[in-house]
Each structure stands twice: as structure tokens, then as C-alpha cells.
């Protein structure tokens, strides 16, 4: 009884740590209980959903180990052998058939390259074999994405716009008739596909699209009208997945509501035109164009799934293909590291090779560490998807943000290491830099994805807090919950990690790193709870806070993936285990600091004050329509 009252009090008063006596007793009990809990609950741990997600668990200060420990490995030997054989033909295409520099200069993919891609069989990698596809698992596909990443991102976009998003809707949501009609030609590459969502006034805000599809009088066709911009493969596509608003009579409100719907539209339906190729900073050989729909007659059979499902379909298509980007980025970083070290190992200045200087060593090390993190996260996500896990959207978003930003920074540093040489077109680094910039923008801007990550987490944590608040109304029947919370809080105040789970699942050499992660996760949980109590629902508006939570979440998930991967290397006695241990330890050390800083800043008064200052500054600038200071000279 004493315990229970103390527990309830500590929840209500969560401003100051409770007295040491309680803390001490709780500590005694905690070790016994947590081990007991671990042993019993392992048997009935969920494998999917928020209660299994490592990334989400963090928001409640929980460590869900199921999806990372041991490092997921979904492919059997046969699948691994098959994909291994497919690597060479793809590499050969880049070495012998495709000329990336020339394509970039000409701002177009040559017919020779397109024919080469078709011949090697790369246009339907994840489509079932019965339609002529390779039926690759996500992890197999990821391995091939690494190859595009390391050679030519524009080819990656051509392939991705075609199969990852262009006709993916048909694969995921098409009925048998639609699949039989369209997939064989698309998979052979005889027809090209495109994903048509974005409009001039509708980027991140996908629901606000204005393209309309109205059922004609006979009820056999939808008449499609609208403009889409920046469509990859827009000028080449014969088959497009087009998103448009369909007016529906709303029975409840007795009005007409617009429901986003996905359609399969063929260029030869008539009324479909595309604009000239856009002149871009990078991925220049990839065709990007506006597509115009002028009274296009789309048969009703070409609706994907059903009217009104469009937004969900669009988001799922993007979500489904997102893991590929992380893999492509890891392939790119690997290549950039090779270029950087090639230079550092041979270039001599002041009588020493560059690699002998600490400032270069730091750059090289950071690249290697970034690669390890990006690669580990990418393969953790793809393997989990292959294991059948359906709730991976947060992890996929994390992979995209981490991958694209790490690649950008790595490319920047590679260019720096190569110095003047790196700036010259001949070195072929600047092309990757130009190609890379769009990866933080399309397929869900990294800014939106950060909000997505944080809000998913907050929602998950918020639900539990509601349970907790309900439990407090009936303390006796909710002993378990309160007990849990009481102990958790006390342990936190004393600074002892509650769960041995992470440490238990890790190789001995990594126990210190594991314990750091455990502490950060607990701090995360308590920070989120404080935020929810302070802001309630309004937290969704607090973007200064949400973006920092997302950054911390990305870091924590990466730490988990890296810890799991290094543990695997040690347990399997890989020849590179020692090096992987170095990478993991260094990454976790630095990431842990970043997490601490980010979590602190969303609670600390002086940081919050700075955020308000940011808003004020932005408002001043907005009013002044530019710099709002007085020039030094006054003019």
C-alpha cells in the first residue's frame, strides 16, 4: 500500500524526485522485476505494430527489441545467391553501356541506355514472375539500389519513377484484369510509367490537388482535366497513375465532397500532352515534365481500388518504395568514401600523405561511420519488411531522412577532400552533388517527414498517457500500470537503467554503448510525457519541438540498428568485427550526445525562449520582405 500511494504521488508531483528511501527500495525490486518481466514477456511479444516498433517505443521510454535484435535477416541462402548473381550484370551495364557524364551533359537518357536497362531485365524487379517480373524481395531490391546509387542517380530516378511509384499502384491495388492488361508491357519496359500527383499549388499538401475527374452521363468514363508538374518520366510515360478529385454526393451532409481517386491513364486515351523537359540542377538525364489532361476519357475500369482511396494509395505507394532510397544512398556513400580515401592515400602535401593528417582522418572516419549507420538502417528496414512487418512507415521515413542527409554531407566532404580537383567536372563529384540535392525534397520532403515521424511517435505515446490517466481514476484495478510507472520514474531519478533488455542483447564489448542508448531512450520517454502534459493536443503545432524530437528519434533508431549490426558481426566472428565495433562505438557516442542536446532543448526554458525569438525574427523578416536590419553604413 505504501508503494502504491508513493507511486500515485510521484506521478502527480512529477516535478521533484521522491525521497531516497522509496527510490532505494524501488531499486531493489526493480532488478528482480525487470528480469522477470523480460523472461516472461519474450514469449508473447508482438512482432508488428506500434508495440513492436523500436522507433515508436522510444516515445514511451520503452525498448522494443523484437525488430532489431538480432539484426534482421529475412533472406534464405537461395535468395541471397540469386541476388548475388544479379549484381554483375547490373554493374556491367553501368561500366560498359551507360555513359553517365555524357547523359548528364545531353540531359537525356540515350535509347542505347534504355535498351540496355530493358535487356538486362531491370524494369520490373518486384513484380510477380507470372507477369514477367523478377519478384525480388525488398532486401534483394535494396542491394540493386546500392548499385544505382553508386553510379548514376538519374538512372535510379528513371527506374524508380517507372516501377517504384509509376506503376506500383497497379501492383499493390490493381485487380487481376488491370494487372494482366498493363503489367507485362511495363515490366518488359516496352511501356514507361509515371506517378502523377504533384500540381503547381499542391506539393506536400497532397489532399489539395485540383485535377478533376467527373463521371460522364453514360457512367462509362471519367472525364479528366488538370495539370501535373514536375513528373519524372512525364515526357516519356505511356501509362500513368494519376490522382484526381472525384465529386461524390455526400449523403450525410447533402452536399458534394471531393474525394482523391487514383486512375490508370494511358497517353493514347487522347487529350494527354506533356511539356518540354525541365532544366534541372541535377538528375538532368532523367526526364521531368508537366503533364496536361484535357477532357481525357478514362474508362471506369481504370479506377484503382475504389473512388476515394486515392490519398491512401498515394501515401502507401510512397511508403512502400521509400526503403529503396536508404539503400541507394548507402551505395553512394560507399563509392564516395572510396573516392575520398583514394585521394587521401595518394595525395602528398607538406611531405605527407593527406591520410596522415588528423583533420582528414576525421572526415574519412565520419564518412565511414555515416555509411555504417545508413546501411544498417536501410537493411534493417528492408529485412523487416520482408519478414512481413506491415507497420514500418516511421522506420522507412527515418531511413529516407538519414540516408539523404548523410549522403549530402558525405558528398560535400568528399568534394572538400579532393579540393580543387573535386570542383572540376572531370572528377565526377559535382555531378553527384547536383543529383543528390533533390533527394531531400522529393518523395516526401525531409521537413514533412520529420513532422510525420514525431507526430506518429507523439500519437503513440499520447494514447498510453490516456491509459495512464484513466488508470489513475481507478488505481486499485490498475495496479500493474501504476506500479510500472512508479518504478520507472524512480529508477530514472536515481539514474539507473530500468531495462537490461538492450544490454542483455548486446555483445560484451558494446555493453557501455547499449547502456548509453538505454538511458537516452528513458530520457526520451520522460521528455515526451512532460511535453504531452504541458502542451496536450497543441503539441502538434510546436514544430520547433517536433523537429528536434524527430532528430533524436532518428539518432536513437540508428544507434539501435548499428548496435544490432555490430553485435551480429561480433557474434558471427566476421573478419571485420573489430572495425565494426569501432564504427558502432563512435557513432553511438556522438549520436547519444546529440540526442541529449535535442531532448534537453525542447524542455529547457532558455532554448524555448530562443525558439520564440526565431518566430519573432521570422515575422520581422516577413514584414520587411528581407533583411530587417540597418546596414552598417546606413545605406
Amino acid at each position: 500500500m505504501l508503494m502504491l500511494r508513493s507511486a500515485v504521488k510521484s506521478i502527480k508531483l512529477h516535478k521533484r524526485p521522491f525521497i531516497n528511501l522509496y527510490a532505494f527500495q524501488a531499486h531493489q525490486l526493480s532488478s528482480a522485476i525487470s528480469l522477470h518481466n523480460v523472461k516472461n514477456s519474450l514469449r508473447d511479444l508482438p512482432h508488428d505494430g506500434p508495440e513492436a516498433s523500436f522507433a515508436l517505443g522510444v516515445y514511451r521510454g520503452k525498448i522494443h527489441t523484437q525488430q532489431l535484435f538480432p539484426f534482421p535477416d529475412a533472406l534464405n541462402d537461395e535468395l541471397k545467391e540469386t541476388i548475388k548473381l544479379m549484381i554483375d550484370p547490373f554493374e556491367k551495364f553501368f561500366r560498359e553501356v551507360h555513359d553517365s557524364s555524357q547523359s548528364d551533359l545531353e540531359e537525356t537518357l540515350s535509347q542505347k541506355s534504355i535498351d540496355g536497362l530493358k535487356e538486362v531485365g531491370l524494369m520490373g524487379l518486384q513484380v510477380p514472375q507470372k507477369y514477367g517480373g523478377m519478384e525480388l524481395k525488398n532486401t534483394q531490391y535494396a542491394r540493386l539500389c546500392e548499385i544505382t546509387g553508386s553510379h548514376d542517380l538519374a538512372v535510379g530516378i528513371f527506374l524508380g519513377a517507372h516501377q517504384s511509384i509509376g506503376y506500383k499502384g497497379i501492383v499493390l491495388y490493381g485487380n487481376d484484369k488491370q494487372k494482366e492488361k498493363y503489367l507485362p508491357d511495363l515490366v518488359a519496359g516496352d511501356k514507361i510509367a509515371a506517378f502523377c500527383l504533384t500540381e503547381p499549388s499542391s506539393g506536400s499538401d497532397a489532399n489539395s490537388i485540383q485535377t478533376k475527374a467527373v463521371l460522364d452521363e453514360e457512367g462509362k468514363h471519367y472525364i479528366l482535366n488538370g495539370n501535373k508538374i514536375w513528373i519524372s518520366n512525364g515526357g516519356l510515360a505511356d501509362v500513368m497513375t494519376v490522382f484526381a478529385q472525384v465529386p461524390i454526393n455526400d449523403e450525410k451532409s447533402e452536399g458534394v465532397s471531393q474525394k482523391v481517386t487514383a486512375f490508370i491513364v494511358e497517353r493514347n486515351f487522347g487529350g494527354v500532352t506533356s511539356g518540354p523537359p525541365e532544366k534541372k540542377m541535377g538528375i538532368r538525364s532523367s526526364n521531368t515534365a508537366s503533364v496536361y489532361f484535357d477532357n481525357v476519357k478514362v474508362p471506369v475500369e481504370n479506377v484503382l481500388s475504389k473512388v476515394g482511396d486515392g490519398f491512401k494509395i498515394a501515401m502507401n505507394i510512397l511508403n512502400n518504395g521509400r526503403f529503396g532510397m536508404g539503400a541507394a544512398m548507402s551505395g553512394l556513400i560507399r563509392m564516395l568514401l572510396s573516392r575520398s580515401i583514394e585521394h587521401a592515400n595518394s595525395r602528398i602535401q607538406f611531405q605527407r600523405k593527406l591520410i596522415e593528417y588528423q583533420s582528414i582522418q576525421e572526415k574519412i572516419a565520419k564518412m565511414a561511420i555515416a555509411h555504417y549507420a545508413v546501411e544498417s538502417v536501410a537493411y534493417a528496414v528492408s529485412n523487416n519488411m520482408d519478414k512481413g512487418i506491415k507497420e514500418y512507415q516511421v522506420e522507412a521515413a527515418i531511413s529516407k531522412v538519414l540516408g539523404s542527409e548523410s549522403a549530402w554531407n558525405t558528398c560535400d566532404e568528399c568534394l572538400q577532400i579532393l579540393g580543387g580537383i573535386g570542383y572540376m567536372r572531370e572528377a565526377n563529384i559535382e555531378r553527384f552533388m547536383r543529383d543528390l540535392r533533390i533527394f531531400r525534397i522529393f518523395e516526401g520532403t525531409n521537413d514533412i517527414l520529420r513532422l510525420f515521424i514525431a507526430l506518429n511517435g507523439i500519437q503513440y505515446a499520447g494514447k498510453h498517457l490516456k491509459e495512464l490517466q484513466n488508470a489513475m481514476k481507478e488505481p486499485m484495478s490498475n495496479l500493474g500500470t501504476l506500479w510500472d510507472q512508479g518504478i520507472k520514474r524512480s529508477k530514472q531519478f536515481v539514474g539507473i537503467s530500468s531495462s537490461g533488455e538492450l544490454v542483455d542483447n548486446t555483445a560484451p564489448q558494446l555493453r557501455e554503448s547499449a547502456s548509453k542508448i538505454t538511458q537516452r531512450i528513458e530520457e526520451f520517454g520522460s521528455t515526451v510525457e512532460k511535453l504531452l502534459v504541458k502542451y496536450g493536443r497543441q503539441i502538434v503545432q510546436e514544430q520547433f519541438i517536433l523537429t528536434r524530437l524527430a532528430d533524436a528519434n532518428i539518432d536513437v533508431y540508428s544507434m539501435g540498428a548499428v548496435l544490432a549490426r555490430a553485435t551480429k558481426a561480433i557474434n558471427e566472428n566476421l573478419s571485420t568485427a573489430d572495425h565494426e565495433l569501432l564504427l558502432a562505438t563512435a557513432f553511438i557516442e556522438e549520436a547519444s550526445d546529440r540526442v541529449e542536446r535535442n531532448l534537453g532543448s525542447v524542455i529547457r526554458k532558455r532554448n524555448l525562449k530562443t525558439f520564440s525569438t526565431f518566430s519573432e525574427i521570422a515575422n520581422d523578416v516577413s514584414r520587411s520582405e528581407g533583411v530587417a536590419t540597418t546596414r552598417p553604413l546606413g545605406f
Partner: protein
Amino acid sequence: MALRVLVGCKRVIDYAVKVRVKPDKTGVVTDGVKHSINPFDEIAIEEAVRLKEKKIASEVVAISCGPKQCQETLRTALAMGADRAIHVEIPEPQSNTLEPLGVAKIFSKLAKEEDVNLIIVGKQAIDDDCNQTGQLTAALLDWPQGTFASEITVEGEHMKVIREIDGGLETIKVKMPAVISADLRLNEPRYATLPNIMKAKKKKIDVKTPADLGIDISPRTEILSVEDPPVRQAGSKVEDVSELVGKLKSHGFI
């Protein structure tokens, strides 16, 4: 006559890899290093598959001798168009001491078992550069040989072979059954496409051992040491002939 063709495919360290000598000097580092099909054997497979496409050959059987990973090499050959494969399994470290004579014995035994009338191998492997297997196999079978082939044409029971020799090209006529060794310019191999890789998964790979074939593959030579070639010394540039003569004199060459 429809030819039945045997093609030897050796698994070697990939040509693009920077080979490193093991610290104990017993050989080169192979652990974790990328391996692929010997480039000249790839050319041999390509030629055999082309014969099949021209309907001159009826079946192409690929063979590889070595550890389990040789099956990957055979899968590549199957993906290029070979019909069947035979893996003569020789585990490490035994496979490291396998010599051309052992391989030739295996090939000749299989040639008889499979009732083959044409054997095509690469002229040499890029790891040991022996250039012996084709010739030894022909001798063991008492078949004619056309080595360093840059072009082969079937003419009834004979084959016209254009050979690359030091002086240029030599054209010979061999009576089949015969052994051909492929040189670089014989053809340009196709790359295995992804669909063909998938189809190849259904093709058969038979596994045998040298013991099954009754062959002794013990080596006749012993590797004493494997070392890096000496580091190349820097040269120096001379301004004119008199400086050149001066240097030659001072180094005691003239």
C-alpha cells in the same frame, strides 16, 4: 552431326580486384575477395552457346572443379545459356593445390562419360596463367587441339580454327572430336540478363567428386613461396643523348 560440347569454367579472383599476398607467403588472400568466372572461360561458354543457337551444337555442359562456391560460377554459365552443369567438388585446402593435369584428367573422364565431341576451355586462367589444361586434355584423349582460337568454323566433320600466334594469325583444320582453347578475340560474351538468371535456377547442377571419377588429383609440384614482385624503382629523365651516354657509362653498362 550435332555437337555435344563440354566447357570448363574456372572460378578465379575477379580481374578488377587488387590482389594481396598473404602475410605467410603461402598464397594470395581469397577470403571475402570477389571471385568470378575466368574471363577466357566466359568467352568459351559464349562460343558454345552461339554454336547451340546456330543449331550446330545440341547441348552445352559447363564444368567447374573446386569448392562449393564454384556453383555460383556454374550458375553464371547456365544464365549465359549452358544447358546443364557438373560441379566436381574439391574442398579447400585441396582445391588450392589442384593443377592443370588433375583438371585435364577430370575433363577427359567426363568427356567420355558425357559422350562429348567438342571441348572448349579458356586459353589460360588469370590466376595461375598456366595455359596447359586444354593441351593436356587433348593429349589424354588423343584428340586434336586448336589453341588460342580467335575464330572457329564447323565444316562437316572438321573445324577450321584461326589461331593467334606471335607472328599473326594461323589457320588450321582439325578433325573432330577436338579440344579448343579460347583466346580474347574469339567473341564478346553476352552478359547474363536477370530473366536468364531466374531461368537458370531451374537448370541442373550435378555434383561429383574426383573419387567418383576415380581420379588422383594430388599435386606434382609444391608451392614454396608467393611474393609480391619487387617495387619498381623510379627511373630518371635525361635531357639529351650525351647525358644518356654519360649515365650509362657511370652505371658501368658501357
